C-alpha cells in the first residue's frame, strides 16, 4: 500500500529504481495524511542556529553593499568603473540578472499551474518568493545607477509641471511599467496563495501575539466552500495574467538593448532570447535554493528526486533553447554581411572578451548537457553544483551582452575596455545579501511548501471504498481517492 511508505524508504526506492515519471504524475508516496503535512511543514518555521548564521551573513553582505553605495553617492558614479563609452556596467548587468532570476518563479507558479504539471506543487512557493525578492533586488539597480538617486521618482512618467517630457516611446519608460506591474502582480500572487496557509498557522498558533498577526494576515480566512470556490477562480486568472506578463517583462527588458543601435544589440531575436535565458537562470537559482532547503528542513519526501528530475528536464530544455539562441546570433552576424557586426562578434568570442564568452558558453551550453543523464538529474550534489555554474554563466551572459557591445561600437575611437571596481563588486555582493536576507526572513515566517496545495494531492480519509462517492450520476475523481491494494 503506497500510503504506508516511510520517507526514508521512499527516497531509497527512488534512488534505486530511478523511475521515468511524467512531470504531471509526480506524487508524494511518503506523505500519508493532512496532519503529517501540517506538522512537518510548519515545523520548518522554528529558527535554528544555522538560520541565524545565514541571516547575519546576509545582513553583513548587505551592509557592505550599503557602505559602497554611500561612498558612491559621496564621490560620484565615476568610482563605479565606468569608462566612456562604456556607461552601462555591473549595475545594468545585475539588474537584468535579477529580473531574469524572478522569471522562473512565475513560470513554475503560474505557467506550470496552467499546464497542470504535478512537480510544481512542492517547489512553487519557494520559487514565487524568489521571484518577489529577485524583482525587489532588481528594482534597486536602476536607482543605484542614478547620479542623484533621491530623484528616482523622475523616472515615473506621470504628468507633471517639472518641464519633464514623459516619453512613452522610450524603452526605459516601458521598463517602469513592466517592472512595477511584475512586482505588484507577483507579490499579489504570492500573497493570495499564502492566505489559506496563514490560516493554518493562525489556527495552530499558541502565542496570542503571533496568532493575532497571522489572523490579520489571513484576512479571516475560514476554509469555507464559498472562499475556496472564488479563491480557485481568482488563482486561475492570476496565473493566466502572469503567464503573458512573464513573457512581456523580459521582452521589455530586452528592448532596453534591442532598441539601441550598438552592434550585437540591434536584433529582433532579443525578446525570445532574453525570456528563455531568464527562465533558465531562474531554474538554476531554484535549484540553488531548494536543494539545501529540502536537506536542512528534512523535506526530501516532499521535494522528491522525481520533482528535481522533472525540474532538471525543464532546465535542460531551456539550456538548449538558450544555446540555440547563441548560435542564431553567430549566424545572424555572419549572414548579415555587416563588417561592424562581424568584427564585434569576433572580438566578443576570440578577442578582448574571449574569457567572458568562454565562461558563458561553458556554463550555459556545455555543462547543462549533463542533464541528459538521468543519473545526474537525480544527483542532488551535481544539480547544486551545476546550478551555481548556471548562476555564474547567466550573470556573464548579461556581461557579454552589455560590455562587448558598448566597448566595440562602430568607430575605433569608440573602442575601449571596462574593469569593474571594488564598488561594483561590493554592491553586487550587497544585492545577494539583500535577496538572501528577505528570503531567510520569509522562510521562518511562512511555509516554504504550500500546505493547502499539498493537501490536494494527499488522499483524504475515507470511511468506505471510493465507489460509494458516485453520487447522482456524477463521476467523482477516483484517482484522488486512496485505494487499498
Amino acid at each position, binding site marked *: 500500500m503506497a500510503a504506508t511508505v516511510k520517507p526514508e524508504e521512499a527516497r531509497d526506492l527512488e534512488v534505486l529504481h530511478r523511475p521515468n515519471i511524467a512531470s504531471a504524475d509526480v506524487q508524494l508516496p511518503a506523505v500519508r*495524511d493532512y*496532519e503529517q503535512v501540517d506538522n512537518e511543514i510548519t515545523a520548518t518555521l522554528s529558527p535554528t542556529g544555522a538560520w541565524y548564521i545565514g541571516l547575519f551573513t546576509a545582513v553583513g553582505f548587505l551592509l557592505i553593499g550599503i557602505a559602497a553605495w554611500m561612498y558612491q553617492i559621496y564621490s560620484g558614479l565615476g568610482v563605479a568603473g565606468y569608462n566612456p563609452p562604456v556607461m552601462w556596467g555591473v549595475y545594468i548587468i545585475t539588474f537584468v540578472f535579477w529580473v531574469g532570476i524572478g522569471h522562473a518563479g512565475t513560470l513554475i507558479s503560474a505557467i506550470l499551474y496552467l499546464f497542470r504539471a504535478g512537480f510544481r506543487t512542492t517547489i512553487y512557493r519557494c520559487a514565487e518568493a524568489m521571484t518577489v525578492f529577485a524583482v525587489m533586488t532588481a528594482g534597486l539597480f536602476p536607482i543605484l545607477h542614478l547620479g542623484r538617486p533621491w530623484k528616482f521618482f523622475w523616472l515615473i512618467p506621470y504628468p507633471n509641471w517639472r518641464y519633464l517630457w514623459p516619453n512613452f*516611446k522610450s524603452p526605459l519608460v516601458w521598463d517602469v*511599467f513592466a517592472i512595477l506591474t511584475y512586482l505588484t502582480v507577483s507579490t499579489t*500572487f504570492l500573497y493570495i496563495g499564502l492566505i489559506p496557509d496563514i490560516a493554518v498557522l493562525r489556527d495552530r498558533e499558541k502565542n496570542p501575539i503571533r496568532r493575532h498577526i497571522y489572523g490579520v494576515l489571513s*484576512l479571516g480566512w475560514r476554509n469555507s466552500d464559498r472562499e475556496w470556490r*472564488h479563491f*480557485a477562480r481568482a488563482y486561475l486568472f492570476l496565473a493566466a495574467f502572469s503567464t503573458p506578463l512573464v513573457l512581456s517583462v523580459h521582452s521589455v527588458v530586452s528592448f532596453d538593448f534591442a532598441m539601441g543601435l550598438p552592434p550585437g544589440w540591434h536584433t529582433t531575436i532579443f525578446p525570445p532570447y532574453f525570456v528563455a535565458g531568464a527562465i533558465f537562470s531562474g531554474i538554476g537559482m531554484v535549484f540553488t535554493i531548494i536543494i539545501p532547503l529540502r536537506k536542512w528542513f528534512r523535506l526530501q519526501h516532499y521535494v522528491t528526486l522525481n520533482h528535481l528530475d522533472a525540474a532538471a528536464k525543464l532546465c535542460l530544455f531551456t539550456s538548449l533553447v538558450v544555446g540555440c539562441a547563441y548560435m542564431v546570433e553567430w549566424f545572424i552576424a555572419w549572414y548579415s554581411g555587416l563588417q561592424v557586426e562581424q568584427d564585434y562578434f569576433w572580438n566578443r568570442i576570440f578577442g578582448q572578451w574571449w574569457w567572458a564568452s568562454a565562461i558563458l558558453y561553458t556554463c550555459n551550453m556545455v555543462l547543462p548537457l549533463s542533464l541528459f543523464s538521468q543519473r545526474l538529474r537525480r544527483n542532488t550534489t551535481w544539480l547544486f553544483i551545476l546550478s551555481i555554474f548556471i548562476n555564474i554563466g547567466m550573470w556573464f551572459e548579461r556581461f557579454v551582452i552589455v560590455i562587448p557591445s558598448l566597448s566595440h561600437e562602430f568607430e575605433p575611437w569608440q573602442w575601449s575596455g571596462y574593469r569593474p571596481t571594488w564598488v561594483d563588486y561590493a554592491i553586487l555582493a550587497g544585492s545577494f545579501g539583500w535577496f538572501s536576507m528577505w528570503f531567510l526572513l520569509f522562510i521562518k515566517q511562512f511555509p516554504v511548501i504550500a500546505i*493547502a496545495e499539498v493537501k490536494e494531492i494527499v488522499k483524504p480519509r475515507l470511511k468506505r471504498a471510493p465507489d460509494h462517492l458516485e453520487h447522482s450520476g456524477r463521476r467523482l475523481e477516483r484517482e484522488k481517492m486512496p485505494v487499498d491494494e
Partner: protein
Amino acid sequence: MRGVIGHFREIDTAVDAIEELKHADFGAITVYSPTPRHELEHVLSAPPSAVRRFTLIGGLLGVTFGYWIAIWVSDYWPLVVGGKPIASWVPYTIIGFEVMVLVGALSTVAGMFINSRLPKITHTVGYDGRFSHGDFGVWVECDPEDASKCEDMLRANGASEVRRER
C-alpha cells in the same frame, strides 16, 4: 444566525451528510474543508464564481486607461521625434498591455475578496480551527425546532462531533 455544525473526520461521510441535508432543505449549508475538494464542489453544485466578471471588466478598463494615459500625455507634450506620430499605437501597446495586466489582476483579487466576503473581522459562527487542519465541517442554518433533526442527520452520517451554535 442559528444552526448546527457537524465535524467529520472522513470526506465521504461529510459528502453523505451534505447530500441528505440538501434533500431535507433545512437552510443554507456551508462546508469547511482544509483544501478544496471536487467531491464537495460537486455535491454542493454551487454556481460558477463571479470573479471572472471582475477580471474582464478590470482588464478592459486597464487597457483603455493604459492607451489613454500614454496618448493624452503625449498630446500634452507634443514633441515630434524622428518624424514619428505624437501618439504612436505600436509602442503604446506595451503600456496598454502592462496596465491591463495590472488592473485586471488587482480587480481579480478585489473580486475574490468581495465574493468571498473577505476580510472577515468577526468570529464566524460554527468555525473551528480543526477545519484548516484536517477535519471537514458542515454547517447548516436551521430553525431551533429543526435543530434536533439536523443533529440526528449529521450523527447518522458519521459526524464525530455535533453542536448547536448561534
